[in-house]
């Protein structure tokens, strides 16, 4: 695989994290317990893409929200519960705002004076490059801003799809090297969140960030650079491992087709002088297609022909459907899933001229998606985990904070994601994060000796002294959270409520009793909790408040330390 592994010589991000990169493949615990092969002999569902007709329960709604957003909240559950499964999925897709979000701002003026004229708290996305220091701060600004969109997103799937596309068309902010390009690339992914896959591939091919990242901007007639031509086929469309495959000759021919593209300030242009004058011959995989050389600016049309040719291969449709399946359902695709889910989804994609929305919609509305055997088997990504902690426990970042401080908070969380092995904007390479594609480990790649303790420390801290960022302390208010429960005074109902929101699998009665003993100070009389709760409601004194907190916090720490909390 010709992955991008050579970073720009001046990579400012290399300066951020002084810790040596953690290599989970050298982690004895991870390697001992992770998949040696895809899971065999586990119960899989035979349910199909037929619309889900089962009961529309809180559990079903929570499953849908866990997989399609970055964290569940009681408010969202209530709203979706009032709809049908189909309407709930429609809402998640259709509620995406038509207008793009406001662009990232100059949050860095206290650190670097922006000599390009960008004032504090205004956007830099239309400004000149400036210098390396300014650009570095803008990269940080961009990544923090992107994190904020996940954190502050209303109920819809936009950012979940942006992350999907980011992983699919992986680029690295540090390697692209121009913050502005990364922003426009990201805006493109957002614009196409539920757009046309083929159109998106065309747009990404000409996107300046991608041109820089995979050397398309250096691809000339005299010395064609195969980097993008290879990844276009290997990673973005048809992939490898098919019954028949594209050839090295196809990579070379595609590279020639793509010669001549150069970046402009926010876009790209075609330079006919750099374009290969050869006719481009493809293999039998592509039905021996020849893309004829076109003169002058018409040479750009060859790129269009190339992508049309690639998209004639059903592998292009199947591959993106498998990626969607792994992103939303489960990573293990056996013959049954391939035949009853992937192939029909690919047919939906093709018959809808590569529109993504009908495919995602069909998958998410299906009996297969909601099947209980497909619930709880998704290991939360670091973003699901971090954003989810804020969302589920209702921790928000005050809009009254200054832009500088808000960005500090976003960047703190973005940085925590980095320590959990997902640095938003900077995947390890062009293939994206291993958890989405690396067989046989897949999701398990998120959990190892380095990351799991850090996940637990994060929630522990949020229940304890809180995290400090942007001059503010952020912590979970367990009483506020408990108040979301319909009957928080009943310890059994309260524990069921916590378990439902925090754990992806049900707990045994025995385990719930043991958890309840934390609320009851190891006693058996439920009414002691009820009295304590109503004492507080009737008189929220320090004493009454302390009594609740000194029981709720250890209970919630215990729950979030369970392995079930890492699942979705």
């Amino acid at each position, binding site marked *: 695989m010709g992955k991008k592994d050579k970073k720009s010589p001046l990579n400012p991000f290399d300066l951020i994290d002084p810790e040596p990169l953690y290599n989970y493949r050298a982690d004895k*615990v*991870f390697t*001992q*317990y*992770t*998949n040696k092969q895809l*899971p065999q*002999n*586990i*119960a*899989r569902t035979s349910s199909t893409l037929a619309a889900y007709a089962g009961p529309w329960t809180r559990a079903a709604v929570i499953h849908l929200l866990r997989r399609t957003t970055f964290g569940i909240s009681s408010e969202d559950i209530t709203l979706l519960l009032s709809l049908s499964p189909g309407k709930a999925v429609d809402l998640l897709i259709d509620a995406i705002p038509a207008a793009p979000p406001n662009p990232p701002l100059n949050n860095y003026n206290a650190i670097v004076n922006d000599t390009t004229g960008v004032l504090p708290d205004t956007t830099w996305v239309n400004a000149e490059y400036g210098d390396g220091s300014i650009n570095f701060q803008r990269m940080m600004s961009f990544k923090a801003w992107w994190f904020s969109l996940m954190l502050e997103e209303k109920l819809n799937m936009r950012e979940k799809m942006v992350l999907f596309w980011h992983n699919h068309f992986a680029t690295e902010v540090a390697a692209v090297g121009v913050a502005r390009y990364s922003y426009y690339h990201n805006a493109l992914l957002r614009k196409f969140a539920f757009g046309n896959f083929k159109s998106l591939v065309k747009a990404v091919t000409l996107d300046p960030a991608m041109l820089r990242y995979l050397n398309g901007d250096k691809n000339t007639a005299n010395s064609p650079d195969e980097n993008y031509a290879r990844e276009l086929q290997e990673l973005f469309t048809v992939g490898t491992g098919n019954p028949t495959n594209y050839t090295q000759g196809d990579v070379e021919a595609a590279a020639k087709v793509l010669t001549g593209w150069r970046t402009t300030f926010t876009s790209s242009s075609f330079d006919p002088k750099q374009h290969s004058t050869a006719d481009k011959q493809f293999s039998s995989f592509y039905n021996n297609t020849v893309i004829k050389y076109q003169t002058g600016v018409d040479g750009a049309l060859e790129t269009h022909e190339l992508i049309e040719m690639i998209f004639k291969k059903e592998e292009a449709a199947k591959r993106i459907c498998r990626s969607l399946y792994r992103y939303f359902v*489960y990573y*293990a695709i056996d013959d049954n899933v391939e035949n009853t889910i992937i192939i029909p989804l690919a047919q939906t994609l093709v018959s809808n001229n590569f529109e993504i929305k009908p495919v995602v919609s069909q998958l998410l509305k299906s009996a297969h998606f909601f099947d209980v*055997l*497909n*619930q*709880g*088997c*998704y*290991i939360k990504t670091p973003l699901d985990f971090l954003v989810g902690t804020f969302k589920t426990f209702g921790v928000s970042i005050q809009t009254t904070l200054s832009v500088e401080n808000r960005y500090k908070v976003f960047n703190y969380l973005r940085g925590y994601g980095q320590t959990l092995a997902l640095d938003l904007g900077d995947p390890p390479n062009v293939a994206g994060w291993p958890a989405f594609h690396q067989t046989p480990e897949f*999701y*398990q790649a998120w*959990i*190892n*000796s380095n990351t*799991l*303790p850090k996940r637990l420390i994060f929630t*522990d801290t949020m229940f*304890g*002294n809180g995290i400090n960022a942007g001059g503010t302390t952020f912590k979970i208010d367990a009483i506020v959270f408990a108040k979301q429960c319909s009957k928080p005074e009943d310890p059994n109902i309260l524990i069921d409520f916590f378990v439902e929101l925090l754990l*992806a*699998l049900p707990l045994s009665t025995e385990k719930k009793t*043991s*958890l309840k*003993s*934390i609320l009851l*100070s*190891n*006693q*058996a*009389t439920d009414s*002691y909790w009820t009295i*304590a709760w109503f004492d507080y409601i009737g008189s929220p004194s*320090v*004493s009454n408040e*302390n*009594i609740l907190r*000194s*029981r709720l916090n*250890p*209970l919630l*720490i*215990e729950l979030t*330390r369970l*392995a*079930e909390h*890492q*699942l979705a």
Partner: protein
Amino acid sequence: MKRDEFLKIGGATLATIIGGWPISTYASNPLLDSIARSAQSSGRVLVLIQLNGGNDGLNTLIPLDQYAVLSNKRSNILVPESSVLSLSNTGKATGLHPAMSKIRNMYDAGFVNIVQGVSYPNPDLSHFRATDIWLTGSASNQYLDTGWLGRYLNETYAGFPTGFPNATMPDPLAIQIGSGVSPVCQGPKAGMGMAISDINNFYNIVNGTVEPAPNTPAGHELTFIRFVAQQTQQYTGVIKAAAQSAKNISILYPSGNTLSNQLKIVARLIAGGLQTPLYVVSMGGFDTHASQTESADHTIGTHATLLQRLSEAVNAFFDDCRLLNVDKRVAAMTFSEFGRRIVSNGSGGTDHGTAAPVLSFGYAVNPGLIGNNPVISANTTSKDNLPMQLDYRALYASVLSDWFELDSSLMANVLFPSFQNTPAVFRKSSVTGLQENGDDEVLSQNYPNPVRTTSSIDFYSDGTDATLFLLDTQGRLVDTLAKGVYLEGKHTVEFNRSGISAGVYFYRLINRKTKSTRKMMIVD
């Protein structure tokens, strides 16, 4: 001596035999010295036994001298006088519930200290608040978000959790068996304790297994995460190693006894070499509002069963510790959020009360009773409670200063306010004292010495609380010679030996800044 039981020994021989090991009555006894040293080097352990629900102290430690009044106030639950297990050296004035024969045997063998009437000013009758008070070490109107032992550990293991585990302290600072890390271990910066959520969890760690999960995709991922969680829990390795290097030996562990199952693990971990100084175990069910006894036979029923479990579990645990050769550095202490009301209620139970006895166990405790039997008036109503004799925080102070030997200058960081006049629950302080050289400036040699009838002792007060104890050679409290706030300067105490048998004794001065011990001889 048989290993499986503690000998009941008469008062006359008590002074010379402890748990089967004969000891000399001389102060410079090498065995005592070596005990002191080994405790120093191998680390003392405190096992805190929480009795959740509010243990009925009056039905645990029964003031037999009040039996007539009690039989009126508690007619529906009181155990027959003849069934009470009277304690040696109390003149049959005090006894334990008949279900506690194992603890009574331990007591008579010199392994139990009981402090009567432990509570705090303005006691709270709510389970939750009272529990939080006992766990955090607060006054009734004080709200602390750290636990008293968490604060102690924070003073002793500075910087935790940064830099831990390390070569000096590779093990957990505290281990709790049970769900949810107890607030007692909460330090200012972090929880200082590790929780082993339940008994199965421990054996999973030892066996390298995890809880079984369903054979589904979710179960598959769950199992993977559980393994990583178990293996990356910082202390899994040391716990597994400790558990594998020691097995429980005692055959006395009863089955179907949660406390016993927890203590079994504790014994194994201590013997396996963990340096962990603190273990927290618990048993629930003490909230006996109704039917705490069988109506036909008051010696059996809910409360009797609980006390029997406690008694058998503690006995088995110390038997095991002895067989595992760690008993000399292990002490255990019970506590409950409160005692119960003097007058029983109409449901054959008792409602929430206040003061209650605290039981401490181990080789190093000062055997015997501290405090007096409560005096129960015939006018006692259902609202009345037993008076406090000792603030529970003074008891904690004795644990910290005499068992954990916390530097007195740090005490104020753990207990607020600090408590100077601590009960002599532990023998340790006097064991250390035996090695101290008396300073004439602080504590003079008594005159005359040896003592036939009276003698006088000069001591210097730094102007704070001062207490002068008389101890026997095993460090047991014989008498309190002086106690109170003394103005700065020299003071003289007259001592009358009447009622004290001939032998070697120590007198020990404790005030805010100094501790000093000297030896005296009493002759007939």
